[in-house]
């Protein structure tokens, strides 16, 4: 359970997150939606201590996150952040092993337990056979799954994902979210694609200009007026034909429909 209560963040005197309250129930996948610059990433950064909230409180299962020593916090909540640039070469197993850091004292060696944890984390994301590959040789989707495995290797019940489907092809977007939804841990994920959020999230929070302007089940939040208010975009929201979840359909400025006919000359 993740409880963000009335959190505000200021950066250089500018309010980036304004009195945001977000609740992630045990084992649920909660989506954080909103346009670029709405404060999603900054709010997530307070969960992994890159940003300090100026006001508010964050609790993990009722415990004050901000009062925890960094190592203890890292054993409770794991993150897949956006900065996925790779400056140095490493094998997949080595990347996942980084997740064991908060469990190890300075000079402690990796033991059998650590190796088992790494392998089972890779198995959970379906990447066990990649363990010895160089991280540079993976596809975007595989890489993202490996980063999720690294977070899982931290052995946490709470997971934060900042745009996990960014830069991925549609197949991998769905694949990654299927994996995340099936993990059984409490997940707070910033998501770009509202239709995918509707398809996979148990609940969503919609942010605009630093504030949470709507929250609830996807069908209640992802609506035509809400999308216009948050994104300034004029869209249609239809029901997913198989799942009944809200699905965004973009519109063109001119509303006239061009009907294709069989006789159209090529």
């Amino acid at each position, binding site marked *: 359970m993740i409880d963000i209560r009335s959190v505000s963040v200021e950066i250089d005197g500018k309010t980036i997150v304004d009195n945001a309250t977000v609740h992630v129930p045990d084992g649920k996948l909660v989506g954080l939606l909103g346009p670029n610059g709405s404060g999603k990433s900054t709010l997530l*950064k307070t969960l*992994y*201590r*890159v940003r300090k909230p100026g006001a508010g409180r964050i609790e993990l299962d009722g415990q004050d996150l901000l009062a925890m020593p*960094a*190592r*203890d*916090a*890292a*054993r409770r909540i*794991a*993150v897949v*952040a*956006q*900065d*996925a*640039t*790779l*400056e*140095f*070469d*490493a*094998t997949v*197993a*080595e*990347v996942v*092993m*980084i*997740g064991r*850091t*908060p469990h*190890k004292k*300075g*000079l402690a060696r990796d033991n059998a337990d650590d190796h088992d944890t790494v392998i089972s984390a890779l198995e959970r994301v379906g990447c066990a056979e990649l*363990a*010895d590959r*160089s991280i*540079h*040789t993976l596809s975007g989707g595989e890489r993202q799954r490996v980063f999720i495995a*690294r*977070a899982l290797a*931290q052995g946490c019940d709470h997971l*934060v994902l900042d745009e996990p489907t960014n830069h991925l092809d549609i197949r991998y977007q769905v694949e990654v979210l299927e994996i995340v939804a099936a993990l059984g841990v409490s997940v707070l994920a910033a998501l770009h694609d509202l239709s995918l959020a509707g398809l996979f999230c148990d609940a969503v929070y919609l942010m605009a200009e630093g504030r949470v302007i709507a929250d609830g089940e996807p069908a209640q939040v992802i609506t035509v007026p809400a999308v216009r208010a948050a994104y300034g975009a004029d869209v249609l929201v239809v029901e997913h034909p198989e799942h009944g979840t809200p699905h965004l359909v973009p519109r063109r400025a001119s509303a006239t429909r061009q009907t294709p006919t069989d006789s159209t000359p090529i």
Partner: protein
Amino acid sequence: MRGRLPLTATLLGCLVLLVVAMTLGVAVGSVALSPGQVWRVVIDHLAGHPHNSVADSIVWQIRLPRVLLAAVVGAALTTTGAVVQVLVRNSLADPYLLGISSGASVGATAVLLFGALAGLGLWAISTGAVIGAFAAMVLVFAVTQRNGHLAPTKLLLTGVVLSAMLSSVTSYLLFRANPQATQTVLFWLLGSFGNATWQQLPIPALVLLVAMCPLYAQSRGLNALAAGPEVAASVGVDVPRMRRRLFVITSLIAGVAVAVSGIIGFVGLVVPHIVRLVVGSDHRRVLPVGALFGASFTVIGDLLARTIVSPQEMPMGVITAFVGAPTLLVLIRRRPHLYGGAE
């Protein structure tokens, strides 16, 4: 982990390489000695009853301190190079990037040309270099830091810009000096172990040993930081504090190394790359293997510097750049995905 040599085997191999390199380094020279002679002198000294022979004075007085100093400096440069690369998250970084070398140059040049700190005798140049290096370090830190945060790109840029500025100071000093003095300074600037003595050894050796401990103890943190600051933060690393520490420790080691050897380029850039290719990016391997391999690299480099144009001596920096640059070029061509050429 499969696909990698066991660490103990790798370390043992590097240790053997270092012993062979050092033995050669002591044995080869204008008076050639056999490895047996070399070791006999060393064992005699360690056992406490040295013999008064020509071999003894060549080995013990001249070549051994030089080879040991080369080893210490090689280990120091490789260690700091590997760590600075993580600190600024740029594989092109080397220990001199943060202004250390150019600061040291100004200090040493002032000593060599104007006889500043003359009261310190033998130590004058080293002291001048250390003062210059640390002044540069403080300056880079002061300009870069904001609320105790050192942003990598800013750090890199400040280091480069400050280096350029300090180099111009060195050039100005050289321009004003007489030609003989200029020759001495240029030789120092390109690095050399020609003036190595036993007295020079303890300080860099001690600094290296003491500084290696906290670096090695933070290898896991280094791995996380290499993966990205947000990754490091998410696994419980206090990133701003770690960056400050790494900056101070690497500056200390590099400053002391520069003070005893001048500016030996490329070791701190190339050797970490070679080591990473062989043992991967885990700093629990990179640091110890790098220290041993870097030591061997510099010992062999110094051997070449003494022998190639014997009886004259080449500056170390000429050798290391001449060997190091093509090595790096080959690596870049063979592993394009590591150097931004995959797309």
